[in-house]
């Protein structure tokens, strides 16, 4: 069970064409992620983290190579299956929160459940439960503008978990938050990872993320430079901080 690959990529390349210039953002990414792992993708700005995030999440298509989710080739899915995958299998968290501004916290959390065909009553019950779990039980009727950045990101975490996804993909979830709030979001993700056995894959610059990650993929110039397990990391962090 623990040996199952929930995400696997084979030679994923992405080339962006802008006028006459072709920019190779990903240069052949091979990675395997096991069910229930907490993975961080680290790398400097422009190294291709968000591009990889989009490929794994089925939000964009690779120019070359394959992405497998639960050993299914994402490129083979039709529009309905792809929507289903985004709705049920993967939860997304973004740096800029991306809540729907005209909806309340609760409505934001119940929207993916509506798409999944869950009844209104059931989705409201579950939405309230999820919002309570992320510590916003008293804010369910607030609109995003009426919430702080940290609170908005909590709503986004609750929304990502709405349909009990197998994978939560996060692109710099703490990028717009201060140290303390960022730490709270990381702890929340870790808790979900432990309690619900959700696989968490998070692109980040945030060194706080390293403490909780099972493995870290270091990306540079569109390639995986090295992969480290947490055991190895503890030694290296000392040197990172000592530099």
């Amino acid at each position: 069970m623990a040996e199952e690959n929930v995400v696997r990529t084979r030679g994923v390349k992405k080339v962006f064409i802008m006028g006459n210039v072709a920019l190779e953002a990903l240069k052949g990414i091979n990675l395997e992620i096991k069910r229930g792992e907490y993975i961080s993708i680290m790398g400097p700005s422009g190294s291709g983290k968000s591009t990889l995030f989009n490929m794994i999440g089925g939000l964009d298509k690779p120019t070359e190579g394959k992405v497998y989710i639960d050993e299914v080739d994402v490129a083979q899915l039709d529009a309905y299956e792809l929507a289903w995958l985004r709705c049920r299998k993967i939860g997304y968290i973004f740096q800029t929160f991306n809540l729907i501004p005209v909806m309340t916290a609760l409505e934001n959390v119940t929207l993916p459940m509506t798409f999944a065909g869950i009844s209104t009553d059931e989705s409201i019950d579950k939405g309230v439960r999820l919002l309570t779990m992320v510590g916003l039980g008293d804010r369910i009727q607030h609109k995003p503008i009426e919430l702080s950045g940290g609170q908005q990101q909590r709503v986004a975490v609750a929304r990502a978990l709405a349909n009990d996804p197998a994978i939560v993909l996060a692109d710099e979830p703490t990028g717009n938050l201060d140290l303390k709030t960022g730490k709270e979001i990381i702890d929340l993700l870790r808790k979900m990872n432990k309690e619900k056995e959700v696989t968490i894959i998070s692109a980040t610059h945030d060194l706080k993320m390293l403490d909780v990650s099972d493995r870290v993929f270091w990306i540079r110039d569109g390639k995986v430079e090295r992969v480290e397990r947490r055991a190895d990391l503890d030694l290296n962090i000392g040197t990172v901080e000592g530099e």
Partner: protein
Amino acid sequence: MTHQKEKIGKQVVLPLSKAVEISVKSIKTRLGRSMITASGIVLAIAFLMSIFMSGSINKALLEKGSAEVRVQLQNIGGEEQVKQIWLVVLSLLVCVVGIANAMLMSVTERYKEIGTMKCLGALDRFVIKLFLLESGFMGLFGSIAGALLGGFLITIVSSINYGLEVITKFPIVGFLYYFVIAVILGTVLSIVGAIYPAYTAARMVPADAMRSEI
């Protein structure tokens, strides 16, 4: 709780009642903007309605009005009407283009929101549904307001020209008939104007939609 390896399914839904709820919410939240968009329809439909009703009132007066008013009316030529139809068509066209323009802007403004919806599992046709409903509702409310406004104004103007007979002989059946036509026309045209913008919104690749910095 453990996650079983689960087969990829196909079923994602957006019930009409939910879609209506979301689009109405969207109109209400951006009320100022929605009213400006709808004002184009209000004016065009008011114009259309005033032309319809002026014909209807004149006809009623010709049939049932006093001799004095009938003489007054018979002096009006039929040539005038052709010009008026042309003006109505023109104003309705301008209105459709105005709607298309406003909806396109609203799509651009909401790239991120649309991208987010797609990440949550929305199909292209959910996005189309939401935009068409939103425009349809603005068209519906706008044309109701416009038809009432146009009917009211032309009644006042006719009363000034022909006296209070206009009120006593008011063609209420004609009014209801043209009211329904004007409202249906306004709603349909608003939906037509939103087709291209809605289609543009729906086609977007989520990754591109999320990148746009607005």
